[in-house]
């Protein structure tokens, strides 16, 4: 955005136009300049100030502007809304906002901004989508209009430049329009006329090969025009015109241009060379159709030289030169291009048809087929089970425990066996104990007996010695 001057220094008409541009209602016509200045300050400078305040806000007004179109509601920058408006805007987007106070406002503003952005980036919902499409269409139309305007403008400029422009200007512009719209067909997506100006040269460079292709094709197909009517439709008509035009030039001008060899000579006058060129081109074009087999290298060389000659001069100049020349000039340009581009498409279509024989042709040319069921995708073995989902360490531990644990039957069995053994031992122990005790007692008794006996013996011995 250019720097705004002080509105006080601007002229009244400038102020007026600025106000109109910013959709501000104009004051009555008789009002003084001060009123305009006031309005200017009030409406336009404010906006500019808002625009310049920060980087983020530069983006936001854009969003808001775009948003305005589909909704037909005023949703400007969230920062400029009052709390209530912000709340209403959020509610409009299905968000129930809480209290909007100092600390929460920023959050809600952000939320609103976030809600607005997905809309403009293409929400896939019916109504809004339709609006988006209509928008884009409008833009395209505008572009087309612009192109035409530009083309017209160029025509006029060239007119003044060209020395031999004696013919009707009205027809020229009319034809230029037709032509530009025709020429646009292959490049529908906004290629501007100045691009078009330079396109032919590149096309011409590719021409020899394309020509050969087309010739071979013609050979193979035995030059059946009717079969290719759809392709050469745009070609045939201009050819007719060009034929007529060539006749015109022969008779009317009498400048003696017809032979192709002359065109190789470098001519000072651009229009002259263009005439020559176009005629030779056309002649060659016709030759290439009628005398298919006689395509020679010389032919092509001629072409190339023509091209080079051509490129040295502004092409538009030649186009604007004469209305008949235009048609003559454009026909060979366009047709080889189409020839070069289209034949490869034909087999492609056939292949597609072969692959999907059951699909019918749709007006859009887009085919949608049901996807075949995938069995073991990409020939990998079918996986019936899925890898174990991650489990918590506790469950892992439990599993480990379970794995190591002895089965419960065996446990019971072991327990019973142990119980039996212990009981058996217990039962037997009593007997054993008794037996042992008895034996011990007996042992003691016998020892005592022996000792007693010994004692008695001793005493007996002592008594015996005594």
């Amino acid at each position, binding site marked *: 955005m250019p720097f705004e001057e002080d509105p006080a220094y601007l002229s009244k008409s400038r102020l007026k136009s600025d106000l109109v541009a910013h959709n501000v209602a104009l004051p009555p016509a008789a009002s003084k300049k001060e009123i305009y200045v006031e309005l200017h300050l009030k409406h336009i400078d404010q906006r500019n100030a808002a625009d310049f305040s920060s980087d983020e806000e530069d983006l936001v007004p854009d969003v808001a502007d775009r948003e305005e179109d589909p909704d037909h509601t005023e949703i400007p920058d969230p920062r400029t809304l009052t709390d209530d408006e912000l709340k209403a805007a959020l509610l409009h987007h299905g968000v129930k906002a*809480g*209290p909007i106070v100092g600390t*929460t406002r920023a959050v809600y503003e952000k*939320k609103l901004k976030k809600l607005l952005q997905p809309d403009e980036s293409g929400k896939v919902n019916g109504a809004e989508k339709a609006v988006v499409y209509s928008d884009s269409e409008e833009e395209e139309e505008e572009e087309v209009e612009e192109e035409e305007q530009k083309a017209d403008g160029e025509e006029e400029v060239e007119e003044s430049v060209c020395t031999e422009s004696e013919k009707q200007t009205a027809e020229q512009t009319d034809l230029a329009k037709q032509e530009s719209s025709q020429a646009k067909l292959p490049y529908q997506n906004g290629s501007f006329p100045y691009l078009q100006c330079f396109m032919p040269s590149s096309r011409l460079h590719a021409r020899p090969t394309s020509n050969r292709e087309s010739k071979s094709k013609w050979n193979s197909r035995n030059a059946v025009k009717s079969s290719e009517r759809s392709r050469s439709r745009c070609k045939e008509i201009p050819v007719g015109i060009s034929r007529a035009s060539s006749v015109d030039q022969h008779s009317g001008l009498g400048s003696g241009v017809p032979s192709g060899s002359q065109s190789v000579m470098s001519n000072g006058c651009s229009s002259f060379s263009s005439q020559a060129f176009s005629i030779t081109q056309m002649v060659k074009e016709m030759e290439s159709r009628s005398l298919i087999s006689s395509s020679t290298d010389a032919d092509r060389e001629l072409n190339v030289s023509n091209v080079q000659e051509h490129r040295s001069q502004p092409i538009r100049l030649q186009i604007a030169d004469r209305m008949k020349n235009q048609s003559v000039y454009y026909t060979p340009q366009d047709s080889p291009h189409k020839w070069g581009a289209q034949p490869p498409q034909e087999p492609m279509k056939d292949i597609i048809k072969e692959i999907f024989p059951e699909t019918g042709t749709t007006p859009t040319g887009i085919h949608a087929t049901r996807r075949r069921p995938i069995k073991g995708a990409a020939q990998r073995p079918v996986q019936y089970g899925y890898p174990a989902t991650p489990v918590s360490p506790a469950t892992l531990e439990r599993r480990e425990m379970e794995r190591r644990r002895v089965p419960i039957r065996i446990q019971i069995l072991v327990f019973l066996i142990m119980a039996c053994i212990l009981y058996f031992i217990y039962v037997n122990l009593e007997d054993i104990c008794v037996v042992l005790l008895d034996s011990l007692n007996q042992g003691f008794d016998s020892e005592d007996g022996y000792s007693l006996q010994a004692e008695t013996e001793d005493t007996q011995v002592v008594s015996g010695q005594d």
Partner: protein
Amino acid sequence: MSTTSQKHRDFVGEPMGDKPVTALSGIGDTLGRKLEEQGFDKASVVLGQFLLLKKDTDMFSDWLKDASGANSRQADSCAQCLREWCDAFL
């Protein structure tokens, strides 16, 4: 969130009373200082903001990220802890 921090459990386990803002899980010294600079000196003030945003954890964590420069993990942790506190005590 599968596991909760000790700080989280401590905060959710009892009424917050006059706890400082750093008692919130996810809010350390740095973030606490930043919040205090903006007037959020007590955990209850942050709770007030959380309630103003209608206990919306997403919006609260957005706010916290903006206000204190917290990362998503910290903001989510704080929001979670406040939400659970609200579930327990409101």
